[in-house]
């Protein structure tokens, strides 16, 4: 609050609802009462003070730092595992402090919950206080207007009453809230105030912060999201088992997701002509809310999710599924696309095919799919670009026991390395006796010594699709909008007061018979208020002298 000269009275009082004892320039608190209730009240006042809020804000900023410096589980589990491998002694200690889950850590929650308790406490006294301020009339005119930060004096020829009435209506027209009072010595005063929106904006902003926190919490409790990799021609329906990854909110029962089905018809990646830089990704999907056959089409793109009443569908990534046909020695045919995972920006992708039903032995394939085969690379592992200009498949064929019935979970994108090392799964031999490690193009096939054939038919594309709900998202957006509005009001509007005192001058009855003194005061921003005060006084003066 503006520090005033002596004599200005309580002119600057109640210009804001900053908690008392907190505002710069306020007096230190008096003697402290004792007793448990007093202690409680004192701690509460302490918690809801500006100083505590400042401290907690600061703590919040500092507490977020480790979340950006250390790998986080929520972002990338693999990086966390790497960190554990590199720092075997330090990592478990950090883990015990939840530093790999900073934003879900109890101490992080402690800080922001305390901050919001403080905020709610603070608001619970500031909101009613501001409500009262909105009803209150502007305060009395200080005795010594010339001691205010802004002041001026002039004389006019008109009567006190006339001048006062004219300036009164002028101020009202300029949307000041005006209060007229008479003083004992016959003087008339006007107290005018403007800019209540500043405080309103400030409170709106802080209230919206609280709503935002609740909205975020709502998403955390009732929201969920899942990702699934879908190959062209395939689809999925909403059930936890069809997802590759499922992240439920704390109160979400994964067994009872609302039914929702999606089918991927076609995926296309567009490239900048002559380069391998992607320019667009399009996934043409059909969907249905409900367990019905998906029928409604949607053109799903990055930055253009499908938003239905509750569920939202996003396109997050893409890759290739080579289509491979294997015929085992008994004549059984296994054919279909298998999704391979991109290893780099050229979309050279790794993956595996597992055929536990092949006879006489189980068959496993692993390898690399290159959309744009580098002719110089004889192993066929390198791709020149992500565009499927010259697809190639570099593949190894294994025979033996895949170990799928052992109960231990396996990645679908690789064969069990332990079993290969243990020779339970062996690299097969080609018809000419060389090991079954080949590079083949679309339509080509290889024949193994035991009569198995493996054909690379071609490829399809897959899209990584995220499905999810966040019931807090729309409320969060709404409160964010209110926050900005509140901030704009709070930081752009100035709360200010002006006073006028009209007293009869000595030369009563003659010209220049009314002495007009004016004073003004604004919270902050004295530079900007100066010119406005000048304008107010000038229009008061100008409006009169002509008529006087």
């Amino acid at each position, binding site marked *: 609050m503006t520090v005033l000269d002596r004599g200005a009275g309580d002119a600057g009082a109640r210009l804001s609802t900053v908690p008392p004892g907190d505002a710069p320039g306020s007096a230190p608190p008096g003697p402290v009462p004792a007793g448990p209730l007093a202690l409680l009240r004192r701690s509460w006042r302490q918690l809801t003070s500006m100083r505590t*809020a400042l401290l907690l804000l600061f703590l919040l900023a500092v507490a*977020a730092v480790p979340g950006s410096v250390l790998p986080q589980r929520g972002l990338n589990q693999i990086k966390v595992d790497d960190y554990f491998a590199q720092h075997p002694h330090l990592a478990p200690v950090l883990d015990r402090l939840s530093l790999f889950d900073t934003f879900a850590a109890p101490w992080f929650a402690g800080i922001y919950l305390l901050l919001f308790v403080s905020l709610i406490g603070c608001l619970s006294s500031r909101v009613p206080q501001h409500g009262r301020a909105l009803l209150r009339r502007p305060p009395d005119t200080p005795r010594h207007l010339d001691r205010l930060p802004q002041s001026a004096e002039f004389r006019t020829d008109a009567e006190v009453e006339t001048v006062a009435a004219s300036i009164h209506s002028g101020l009202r027209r300029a949307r000041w809230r005006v209060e007229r009072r008479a003083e004992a010595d016959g003087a008339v005063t006007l107290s005018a105030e403007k800019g209540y929106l500043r405080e309103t904006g400030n409170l709106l902003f802080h209230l919206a912060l609280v709503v935002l926190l609740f909205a975020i919490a709502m998403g955390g409790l009732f929201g969920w999201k899942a990702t699934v990799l879908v190959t062209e021609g395939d689809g999925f329906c909403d059930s936890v088992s069809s997802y590759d990854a499922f992240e439920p909110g704390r109160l979400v029962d994964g067994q009872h997701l609302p039914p929702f089905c999606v089918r991927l018809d076609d995926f296309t990646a567009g490239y*900048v002509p002559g380069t391998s830089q992607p320019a667009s990704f399009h996934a043409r999907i059909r969907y249905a809310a409900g367990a019905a056959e998906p029928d409604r089409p949607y053109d799903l793109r990055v*930055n253009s*999710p499908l938003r239905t009443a509750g569920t939202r569908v*996003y396109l*997050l990534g893409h890759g290739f599924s080579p289509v491979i046909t294997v015929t085992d020695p008994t004549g059984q045919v296994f054919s279909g696309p298998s999704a391979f995972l991109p290893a780099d920006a050229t979309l050279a992708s790794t993956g595996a095919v597992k055929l536990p039903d092949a006879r006489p032995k189980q068959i496993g394939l692993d390898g690399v799919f290159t959309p744009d085969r580098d002719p110089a690379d004889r192993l066929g592992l390198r791709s020149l670009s992500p565009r499927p200009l010259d697809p190639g498949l570099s593949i190894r064929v294994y025979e033996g026991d895949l170990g799928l019935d052992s109960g231990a979970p396996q990645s679908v994108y690789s064969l069990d390395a332990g079993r290969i090392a243990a020779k339970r799964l062996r690299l097969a031999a080609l018809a000419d006796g060389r090991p079954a490690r080949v590079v083949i193009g679309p339509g080509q096939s290889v024949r193994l010594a035991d009569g198995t054939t493996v054909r690379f038919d071609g490829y399809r594309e897959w899209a990584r699709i995220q499905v999810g709900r966040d019931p807090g998202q729309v409320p969060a957006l709404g409160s964010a909008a209110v926050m900005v509005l509140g901030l704009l009001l709070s930081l752009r509007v100035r709360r200010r007061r002006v006073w006028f005192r009209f007293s009869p001058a000595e030369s009563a009855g003659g010209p220049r018979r009314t002495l007009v003194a004016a004073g003004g005061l604004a919270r902050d921003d004295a*530079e900007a208020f*100066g010119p406005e005060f000048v304008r107010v006084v000038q229009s008061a003066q100008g409006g009169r002298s002509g008529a006087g």
Partner: protein
Amino acid sequence: MPVDAAYAHLSDNLLIATILAYAAAMLLYAVEYAFGDRGRVAAAAALTTPDAARVLVGAGGPAIPPSTGDTPTGGTATDGAVRPRTAAFGRMAIFLTVVGWIMHLGCLTSRGLAVGRAPWGNMYEFAVAATLVAVTGYLVLLSRQPVRYLGAFVMLPVVLLLGLGGTVLYVPAAPLLPALQSYWLWIHVSMITLACGIMLVGFATSVLYLLRARYERRTAVGRPVHFPTTLGVRLPAADRLERLTFRVIAFGFPILTFAVIAGAIWAEAAWGRYWGWDPKETWAFITWVIYAAYLHARSTAGWRGRGAIGIALLGWAAMMFNLFGVNLLISGFHSYSGLS
């Protein structure tokens, strides 16, 4: 859309010319500042607006005693003795700033024409755009208030950022990745650029405040002042610098807030979540919270002044770290820098 090589080349050349013009302007500002004792900068700075207003209003009535609140203390003089030669340096500096600004605008525009999109798609372009906002802000301020004393202090970070942009961060003109093709991203980055440019000016005034406040504290008790505190001689009163800083940051903060929100809206569409504590987001959060703390501190007993300004400087440091540190040191989701 393919890249237009002629425009791209023009843009690169204009960048170099801009840096040269700004660097020269910075030197001239510094010369005027250092040797222009009682120069226009000092004289103008001594005339605080509230007092000017008082004189104006008071003219019609009896004399009004000057208030004590807003007059600058010590150091500055109003005797109006202008040393023409140093003032000429200052005018030259402004001329070069304006010339540099035109080329700067040209550099950004031709880059935009070269790539056929808004020219803030990677860190290099971002640095060029943010500094353009800062210089624009300085020139706008200059047209309204006598703030030439700010010149050298704004130009220094601008030249550094542009230099860094042109060397370390430089990436050749190229179109955007699909995830970056979104008008919310366009809004997000425009607003961040704007906020960043404004906060740069707030950073400069904060540093000046610290210099001046230290100068005032020392001269008040008659202690000797040494470089760099001596630079405070020719600055406006610390009070005024403090309020100027507040006005600048209070102007930038809602824009920063909106920028972060626009980023969240874009992230929701591109990645399926509006906030994910990716390092870039985390540092945006940290920056925002620190600037909020600054605004708080200004209304907290015992914090207005040095304490609050210190927080404002931290806010700027966090903002710069988010711009450079996060992209270069911590890899995140935001594959935005164009460097790999």
